């Protein structure tokens, strides 16, 4: 086995070159390059974490905005319902008052007309009584030759009319 046969010859050379190589790798790569590579990886992973957190925050903000929008929409809808309800009520009330006014005016007219009618009827009744009284005076004067006073005739007529 050359490893054993040559041991005394090559030991120091092997040791020297191995230690040299390992020292270069340890200090040149392990201590110099490795931390930079590790920091690159750490920076990347922290960047990814940060980006994920930012995306999460943005998503939450979007959710909040949507929630606010929904609330605003619901609010405006109820507001609109209230306004239309009020308008409806308003217009109903206005119609009612207009109808009531028109009602009152027409009732007034009807009452006036009724009053006139009653007055006319009363006047007509009075005329009839007068005419009947005169007719009764005449008839009595012609048939019985008795002069009957105007007031008497009128009273008789009224009594006769009341019997009717």
């Amino acid at each position: 086995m050359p490893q054993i046969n040559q041991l005394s010859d090559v030991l120091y050379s092997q040791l020297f070159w191995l230690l040299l190589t390992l020292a270069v790798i340890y200090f040149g790569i392990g201590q110099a390059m490795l931390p930079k590579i590790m920091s690159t990886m750490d920076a990347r992973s922290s960047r990814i974490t940060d980006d994920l957190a930012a995306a999460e925050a943005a998503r939450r903000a979007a959710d909040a905005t949507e929630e606010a929008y929904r609330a605003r929409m619901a609010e405006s809808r109820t507001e609109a319902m209230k306004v239309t309800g009020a308008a409806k009520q308003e217009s109903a009330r206005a119609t009612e008052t207009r109808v009531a006014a028109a009602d009152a005016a027409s009732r007034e007219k009807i009452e006036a007309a009724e009053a006139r009618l009653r007055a006319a009827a009363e006047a007509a009744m009075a005329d009839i009584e007068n005419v009947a009284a005169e007719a009764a005076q005449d008839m009595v004067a012609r048939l019985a030759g008795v002069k009957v006073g105007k007031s008497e005739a009128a009273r008789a007529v009224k009594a006769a009319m009341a019997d009717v």
Partner: protein
Amino acid sequence: MAAESTIDPMHQFQIDSLAGDLAGNPFAFTNSALWMLIVLGAIFVFMLGGMKRELVPGRWQVMVEGITSFVASMIDTSIGPEGRKYLPWVFTIFMFILFANLMGLMPFGVVPGVHPFTVTSQFTITGVMAIISFSIVLIVGFWKHGFHFFSLFIPHGTPKPLLPLIFLIELLSFLVRPFSLALRLFVAMIAGHILIKVFASFIVSGLNAEGAMGPAIALLSFLFIAGVSALELLVAAIQAYVFALLTSLYINDAENLH
């Protein structure tokens, strides 16, 4: 039979000097040193691709960050939050073993004159790495806990009469750790490479042999090598993972005791 004798499955582990006198000279530049530098260069180029530091990584950056976070999460799970200070060392051995194992399996041999060399098939290499890892465990353990570190060798709820025996067994298993760490990787690498070389020699001798059986054996060996090579790629990654994982588990013992 002449061809068979020239193929030595152990020759691939031979260390030859490329510059300087080999015997006992620490600065002798060998093929082993050359491949360590190649591994170092490959790791450096690979890691450079991860230094673009873009927010949205490209393919290369994803590979580098994947390996980095793999080792980092291994340390996080086995040691905990205090383990991050050991990340450079665990990462160093993981990358070095992984790239050395894979480099040794790459078919560079198809280029004439190029002989791939598996650095991790030398127990000098795996041993030194295991000793460094074990030293970290010892230093951290005694630094943080002082002599209380010895309580590591007494599991909770040990009956009083068994205490010395358990202590001895635990101490022994603790002291064996660097050897098991070093030998596991060394043996896994050397075994796979010897297996491939032996069956490769079967191909050569099968094709040289007379009769119908030779080519059939050569074909069979070729298919076997393809399978073993795929398995070795898996072993290369697993051994790097095991070495790094065990190191972090041992460091966890020192950092957190039980």
